[in-house]
């Protein structure tokens, strides 16, 4: 009788091995600009804080008017000098969108140049109404190059961790290579490992 009970108990434990990982369910939409840190890595709040600083600083620079009414800008290759993956393109897009929407800047679509060149060939091939066809020779010339780099340092002792990010952006005059504007945003985040809750 006792052996049967032990065997039944072990069988119950063994059968319950047919289980899977818990799923994330019952989600709710949240405000994207509320500060939430589930982990110790780069997150959307960090991107928003960097973009906010860069945009406000560039708008202050542009309002001086020293470089024309609407400076024409192309984006440089982003540089991530941290030890983790950061979507720099998302950060660039966030900055670009805010600056374009401010109406004080003109951005050129560098990434689309190849596609546009192929479209010129097609439109000049005879398939398109020549009165309406777009061709080369009308593109705006970029005046400035906007680039950014993010670096980080991590300090960790025991249950404490401090992560420091520094995002530096520069605007370079393409004609003279002069850096006409630069600013940076520093972010420090402190984390603690949780104990067992008591």
């Amino acid at each position, binding site marked *: *009788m*006792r052996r049967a*009970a*032990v065997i*039944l*108990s072990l069988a*119950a*434990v063994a059968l*319950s*091995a047919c*289980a*899977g*990982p*818990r799923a994330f369910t019952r989600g709710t939409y949240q*405000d994207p*600009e*509320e*500060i*939430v*840190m*589930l982990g110790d890595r780069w997150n959307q*709040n960090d991107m*928003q*804080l960097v973009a*906010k*600083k860069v945009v*406000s600083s560039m708008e202050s620079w542009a309002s001086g008017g020293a470089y024309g009414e609407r400076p024409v800008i192309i984006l440089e290759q982003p540089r991530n000098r941290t030890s983790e993956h950061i979507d720099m393109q998302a950060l660039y897009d966030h900055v670009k969108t805010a600056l374009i929407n401010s109406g004080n800047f003109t951005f050129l679509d560098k990434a689309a140049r190849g596609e546009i060149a192929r479209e010129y060939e097609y439109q000049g091939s005879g398939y398109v109404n020549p009165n309406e066809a777009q061709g080369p020779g009308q593109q705006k010339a970029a005046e400035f190059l906007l680039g950014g780099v993010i670096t980080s340092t991590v300090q960790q002792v025991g249950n404490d961790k401090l992560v420091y990010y520094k995002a530096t952006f520069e605007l370079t005059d393409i004609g003279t290579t002069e850096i006409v504007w630069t600013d940076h945003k520093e972010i420090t*985040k402190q984390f603690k490992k949780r104990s*067992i*809750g*008591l």
Partner: protein
Amino acid sequence: MMERKLVLALALGVALAATGAWAEGPAFGRTDGPEGSEIGQGGYAWYRTPGQYYVEGLLGAATVDIEPENEALPKTDTTDMLAGLTVGYMTEDWLSFQVGFARILADDPTDLFSAGIRNSMNLEPFNYYFSLDAGLYSPSEGDTRFALTPGVGAEAVLSDHLHVGLQFQRDFVFADDTIAISRFTARVRYKF
């Protein structure tokens, strides 16, 4: 009487510890404020910082093997019904502190008091756990003795609050006589 006071004291200790663990949630900041307004904000506002209490009823069987120190006396090996209650506090999804009471429903009933931890592995819809309790073996006739009680169990998660399962525990009683108790119980646990 002494044992009841001990169990009450243990339960009070768990409750006080749980009250002290009720940490305040972090402030809820935003990134679209003035420059520098994000300093001091952060964390995970929805994290369950306080723990969960639970109550667990148990019903099963206990086999009590007693081998007297005096070899002239006969060994006894009895199996009787067992019923009891456990109250616990989950500090984490995987760690609980608990106090329990069980009674072996024999003609001469034996009371078993325990306090200890439960370490769970959660693979929903099933949980597996290991428990380790320190306790008191209190027969109706004879002295109360200290016991160590390891146990293993598995339970099915019926809902956020209700779990049902099985557990096996072995009581090692520290006494001159060799006393060992095996408990097989079915359990229903409700989390608050």
